[in-house]
């Protein structure tokens, strides 16, 4: 029943639409993971970013001001997590769960408080992100029209992968961050303060999730809907686990989930019930988690202390 037309460039376009928010959030999660903080607050950070991006765009009339406010909101909310988990030494899991619930509540509340809207807020005054086709490259057949026809946030997302790869594995800061994540006591015995790196990592994940949210609410669509992230932040968490916190692997995992979402969307067009096709990314998530679990079991080597 999968006809060949399923794999056309329109499908790839929707793969990338689905992939970019997940990728950005997952890279944020990856940085935290490398710093030794298991950040499951990506969902809430992303949702906060999506809301702030719409609000920023609505009030300023500029999509980029919207993106900026998304980033600021992501950083602001993540600073709560950083303060609680690092400064106050709280459990990051508990804090992040609270933060996720808070994000759902506060955005829905503000939707009513500011615009007196429930559910979905759409308005012509919200300026969306435009795609920026790169001359010549975007004319290339097949992937060219997809890969070189992204929003600014989309390009940033794809650039973030090699940049993070480089910083993590080829710079002193990356070496220290990885050390902090693996053995914070060893790091502090050499004068590296784990808290600082963990703060930085959590705030960076806030900024990246803010970007992810902005892409979601100003790029993929131009609106804010209650709980519009609908599990993408969780999928990003899974992507980090699946890729064992390697940037390139995270890109691969995000691609996988992007495909799942896009194919689900396409199948819906082919007449499958939407309840079923909407479940596609989550089915992939479940399968991936089972596979990842086995990998983890194998990866956990006995480490000399």
């Amino acid at each position, binding site marked *: 029943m999968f006809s060949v037309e399923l794999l056309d460039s329109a499908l790839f376009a929707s793969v990338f639409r689905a992939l970019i928010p997940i990728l950005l959030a997952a890279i944020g999660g990856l940085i935290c993971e490398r710093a030794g903080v298991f950040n499951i607050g990506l969902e809430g950070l992303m949702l906060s970013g999506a809301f702030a991006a719409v609000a920023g765009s609505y009030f300023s009339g500029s999509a980029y001001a919207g993106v900026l406010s998304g980033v600021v909101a992501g950083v602001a909310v993540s600073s709560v997590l950083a303060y609680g988990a690092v400064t106050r030494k709280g459990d990051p899991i508990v804090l992040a769960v609270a933060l996720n619930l808070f994000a759902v509540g506060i955005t829905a509340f503000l939707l009513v408080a500011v615009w007196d809207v429930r559910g979905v807020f759409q308005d012509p005054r919200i300026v969306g992100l435009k795609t920026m086709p790169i001359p010549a490259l975007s004319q290339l057949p097949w992937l060219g029209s997809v890969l070189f026809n992204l929003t600014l946030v989309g390009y940033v997302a794809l650039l973030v992968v090699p940049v993070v790869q*480089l910083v993590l594995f*080829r*710079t*002193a800061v990356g*070496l*220290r961050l*990885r*050390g902090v994540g*693996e*053995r914070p*006591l*060893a*790091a*502090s*015995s*050499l*004068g*590296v303060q784990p808290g600082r790196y963990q703060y930085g990592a959590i705030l960076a994940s806030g900024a990246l999730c803010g970007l992810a949210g902005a892409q979601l609410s100003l790029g993929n669509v131009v609106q804010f809907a209650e709980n519009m992230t609908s599990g993408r932040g969780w999928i990003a968490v899974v992507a980090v686990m699946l890729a064992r916190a390697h940037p390139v692997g995270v890109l691969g995992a995000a691609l996988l989930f992007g495909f799942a979402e896009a194919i689900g969307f396409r199948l819906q067009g082919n007449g499958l019930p939407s309840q079923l096709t909407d479940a596609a990314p989550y089915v992939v998530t479940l399968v991936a988690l089972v596979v990842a679990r086995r990998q983890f*079991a*194998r990866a*956990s*080597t*006995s*480490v*000399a*202390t």
Partner: protein
Amino acid sequence: MDEGPGGLRGSPPGPFPVRIAAHEEGDRVAELELRGITKRFPGVLANDQIDISVAKGEIHALMGENGAGKSTLMSILYGLYQPDAGEIWLRGERRRFSSPIEAIDAGLGMVFQAFKLFPSLTVAENVIYREEVTRRGLLDHREANRRVTEIADRYGLAVDPTARVERVPVGVLQRVEILKALYRDAQVLILDEPTAVLTPQEAERLFTILRALADDGRTIIFITHKLKEVMAISDRVTILRDGRAVASLTTRETTAAEITRHMTGRDVELRAWPVTRPAGAPVLTCEGLSATGDDGRVVLDSVDLTVRAGEIVGIAGVAGNGQTELAEVIAGLRTAAGGVVTIAGTEVSRAGVAARRKAGLAYIPEDRHGVGTAPTADATDNLSLGHHRSGPLVRRGVLQRGQMVERARELIARFQIKIAGPGTMVGTLSGGNLQKIVVAREMAYHAPLLIAEQPTRGVDIGAIEFVHQQIAQYRDGGGAVLLISAELSEILNLAQRILVMFEGRVVAELDAATATESELGLFMAGGGTGISAVTTVDGTESEHAR
């Protein structure tokens, strides 16, 4: 290097800068001097006016029982604690270290007992951490590897700078720690019980390295429990007891007996506990016991062993060669991949811990904080654990608190546990007293079989003697004991038969009456086993694991 003309008196000829014997230091500035160091913790005077002076190029041993204040003193020196009173003088200059990094910058290096390394990073990355070699903002791995190799070659610290630390054996990890200090140009190197994780041969090698470092003008402070090492390697020794420096001696002018007397305040010598009766019927038998580790590698490979009533069987081996897993598999804490375990006539190969205990097992685990006790529970609860299933402590399913407290009081008295009372949280106890809690509880089972895993690790001499006595009495009362220990003298003093484990196998069985430490050490290092033993752990799991 900077000796005045007077410093050369009586110096041996040779290519290295001169080592200054300690008694000659009087007229010159000491490399390191601690003056009147005092540190008080709530209820404890950990360091009481300690004075220590260490000359440049000297190997200075720091000895003392647990709780004597060695760790506190070194933590103060390394900037982890601030002293309440007292001064640190380094090369004639008064210093204050408010963090380890300040101590490192002043030329101090510390090799902790628990290595502070990053397993997933390479040896070179571990060494250069925070002192990275970069070129145009990026890490220069080649240059880092070169520098690490250069230092390593200079002092015979053979390491592969590109190896991942998680794949490197323990003896090499220690060299990485030493390299870390040398890379930061440590002039004073502090080693906290460095030989605890080494085979005798590896320890010898470490001593050669330390000697080379001292000959190069570096100063070594060496914390140890082991008299033999003090006598073998140190120039001088300072002995701490109850937070005070009770003696500073020149090693070649003293004796082991004198040091022991200073340490304990009495004459204690660890003695052997010979058997009085021949061994009886088998109590524990293991046949073809195999198991895999957490990472899926084979850690136990067809182990056969028997322990008889009235007999202590010692398991020797370098840490990480399957001893821990052997104890876990027999105790039921780890599932065996294959093989048969029989305790006092009951086959328990697939049974859970409770069934094994019922069959006649008592178990003193290696990890007394995590496995042996519940640190946040009080002595009463800890001493009752496992004894709550039946008997006087429980009536119709309800614990009898009064009985438990009564019993705890009795055990505390009998085992001379220094604790405020049965209601005191055991997590606050010193290593020796915590271990006595575990020993008291397990002995109280009067089980036919006792597995004692590292029963005296990190415990002071007085407590070691006590635990040894208890174990010997247990045996003499007809108990079967499987003694797993990294301490060869412990095994030689207590056991009748000794099995040596290497890479998950029993590679040798020796009669304790005739075995020597060097013989054991050879087997522990995988020597004398012929060809195949070395290759078993890696790929061939399915073959052995059944």
